């Protein structure tokens, strides 16, 4: 069975002066850090890949792996099935390597360049371990490289490895060789192949058997340099019976050019292990006329490899001019569980085509999808999701809920659910709603003393609550504010 349903956007109200009106959301992370960078020239060819590999001092097998991916990428075509429109990307006009030049390679966090430290302070992320009260370990990545990881020693005592992926390639090659590209093969898709060829950094996590990671692990990605693409690669392995909660956040300066971000994230959950992966994506969305912004083409996939394992994706997507992203779970182990909770906000001319894939292979596997799309301005917001139940996945269960909320009458919300079921004992449910912020709701709030902005924030947060509840406490409040800021000025 295969279905494709499209719900066209519905105009929500005719009253010109009330619900219409776009926009004036200020992006507050749009500053540029003035720091010298060590960069590769623009363009993409084998030499650039050799350059990156050499910069990273990588072993020969790693370079070979990259070149193989590059050879494959050259034969591939950029996908065009998503519900997004953009000018062709000139892959030769991008710099594939840019590292902030630090006078000496930091031996410890204290030696990080003060300018960079300031950047992260402005972003509300302190690299100062002592001052951190929230109990969150951070790996900070600027452009192409990781500039430091906090709480490394404390985590090390439990046998947890949390470091940049470059470091892992040097220090833990056996783990990299065993797991890298086992979930997202280098040939998987156009952007993942590109990533494999040119990725420059990212995070690596290994949680040993039976260990429950005592703090949230997080990576903060920052694009700083101009004309640079960011291609990070993250690999998280939760060994038998372990647990980890991981969060990533992202921002970028405001620029008129579009910048490309093509990341790959792979998660591996062994028997009885659980990985919770949360994203607050706030890349620069472009200005109110749709100029500039990040092109966010990301491949995220996890495998529930062992029985009784669980992978849960939570994402709050407010940034980027284009978001193309489908965090997925391969439910291979029996009784394994996959979850996807998403809030995607688009405003002005932003476009998002996002959703998930739940692939049921094992018996008694369960998946749950909760997607909340909020569109405003002239934006387009699409949910695209695949639920696949294979022949042997007896008693598989899926529940999907896709809700769209429209603000104004010039934006669009679309739902593309794909369902493929090959086992008759399975049960798949899909529910979808489309609603609007009504004039009645706003007037009701106004009459209780709230201005329209406050009212919209309340209504939006109510709409997105089921997903926000999944976020770790430390980030839930921040994410709520972000939702409100992203939609500022979208209702007049």
């Amino acid at each position: 069975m295969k279905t494709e349903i499209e719900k066209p956007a519905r105009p929500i109200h005719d009253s010109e002066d009330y619900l219409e009106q776009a926009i004036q959301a200020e992006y507050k992370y749009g500053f540029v850090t003035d720091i010298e960078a060590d960069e590769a020239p623009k363009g993409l060819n084998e030499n650039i890949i050799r350059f990156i590999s050499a910069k990273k001092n990588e072993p020969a097998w790693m370079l070979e792996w990259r070149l193989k991916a590059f050879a494959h990428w050259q034969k591939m075509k950029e996908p065009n099935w998503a519900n997004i429109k953009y000018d062709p990307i000139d892959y030769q006009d991008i710099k594939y390597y840019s590292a902030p030049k630090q006078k000496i390679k930091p031996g410890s966090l204290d030696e990080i360049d003060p300018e960079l430290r300031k950047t992260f302070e402005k972003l509300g992320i302190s690299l100062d371990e002592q001052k951190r009260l929230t109990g969150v370990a951070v790996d900070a990545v600027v452009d192409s490289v990781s500039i430091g990881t906090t709480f490394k020693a404390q985590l090390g005592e439990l046998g947890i490895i949390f470091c940049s992926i470059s470091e892992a390639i040097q220090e833990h090659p056996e783990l990299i060789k065993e797991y890298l590209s086992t979930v997202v093969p280098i040939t998987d898709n156009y952007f993942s192949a590109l990533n494999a060829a040119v990725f420059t950094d990212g995070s690596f996590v290994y949680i040993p058997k039976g260990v429950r990671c005592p703090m949230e692990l997080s990576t903060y990605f920052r694009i700083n340099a101009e004309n640079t693409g960011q291609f990070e690669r993250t690999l998280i392995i939760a060994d038998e019976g372990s647990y980890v909660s991981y969060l990533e956040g992202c921002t970028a300066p405001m620029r008129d050019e579009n910048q490309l971000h093509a990341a790959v994230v792979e998660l591996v959950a062994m028997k009885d292990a659980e990985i919770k992966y949360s994203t607050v994506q706030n890349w620069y969305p472009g200005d109110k006329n749709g100029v500039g912004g990040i092109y966010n083409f990301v491949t995220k996939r996890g495998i529930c490899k062992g029985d009784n394992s669980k992978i849960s994706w939570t994402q709050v997507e407010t940034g980027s001019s284009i978001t193309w992203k489908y965090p997925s779970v391969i439910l291979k182990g029996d009784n394994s569980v996959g979850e996807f909770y998403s809030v995607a906000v688009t405003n002005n001319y932003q476009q998002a085509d996002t959703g998930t894939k739940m692939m049921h292979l094992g018996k008694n596997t369960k998946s749950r999808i909760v997607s909340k799309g909020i569109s405003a301005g002239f934006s387009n917001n699409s949910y695209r999701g695949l639920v696949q139940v294979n022949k042997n996945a007896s008693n598989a269960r899926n529940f999907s809920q896709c809700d769209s909320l429209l603000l104004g009458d010039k934006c669009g919300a679309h739902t593309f659910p794909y369902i493929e079921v090959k086992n008759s004992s399975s049960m798949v449910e899909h529910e979808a709603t489309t609603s609007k912020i009504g004039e009645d709701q706003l007037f009701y709030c106004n009459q209780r003393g709230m201005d329209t902005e406050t009212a919209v924030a309340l209504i939006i947060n109510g709409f997105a609550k089921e997903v926000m509840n999944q976020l770790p406490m430390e980030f839930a409040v921040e994410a709520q504010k972000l939702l409100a800021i992203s939609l500022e000025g979208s209702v007049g």
Partner: protein
Amino acid sequence: MLKIDNLQAGIEGRKILKGISLDIKPGEVHAIMGPNGSGKSTLASVLAGRKDYEVLGGSVEFLGKDLLDLEPEERAGEGLFLGFQYPVEIPGLSTTNFIKTAVNEVRKYRGEEPLDAVKFLKLMKEKMALMNIDQSLLSRSLNEGFSGGEKKRNEIFQMAMLEPKLAILDETDSGLDIDAIRVVSNGVNKLRNKDNAVLLITHYQRLLDYIVPDFVHVLYKGRIVKSGPKELAYELEEKGYDFIKNEIDAAELADQVAEINK
């Protein structure tokens, strides 16, 4: 407190209120009655500042300010409360959170510090006891899945929390059975004092058995055609709106005939 002078208003080019004048003083309860389509709810909406309605003439003064010049949220800040005939649902937003935001936004307007969680809960407990309202109602999503009676009780509870100077209750009794009317009316009566005022808008006299008005006004075809003490409500109940309608329509007809004969 509220002085309405020759107010004319309409919607989508259609004139509905054709010159309303009304004077409400602190401590008073006024009831506006009238048949369907007479303009009762339009009056409530215009006073609260609903944007689809257009004011075509006249003035409204509220506590010394030009009410028509204020945004809806500013009117709320000044102490005007509208109990809705059809309270809206907001899924996912807890009633408590909604009320807390409302209370603190109104405080902000008045230049007062917001209530912290402890003080807010204390106030809420106090009003819950007074209004005889259950915690479980307040932790649910705002009005979502509420019965008609629960929605109206929630309106009166919000009124208790916001302590308005003037409460306009638009058809608060519509769709309620007699027990629910009693509960809601008790709430309103407990909140009455010498400094605040209530404007009741209702189709039926039965609400006025529970909330006894000082004045009753009959609205018909966008005008107040008759005003009097509470006894007027009984007369209406007894004779129906037809007796007013006939009176007015006969007078109108006589005018028209006189016009033609001239």
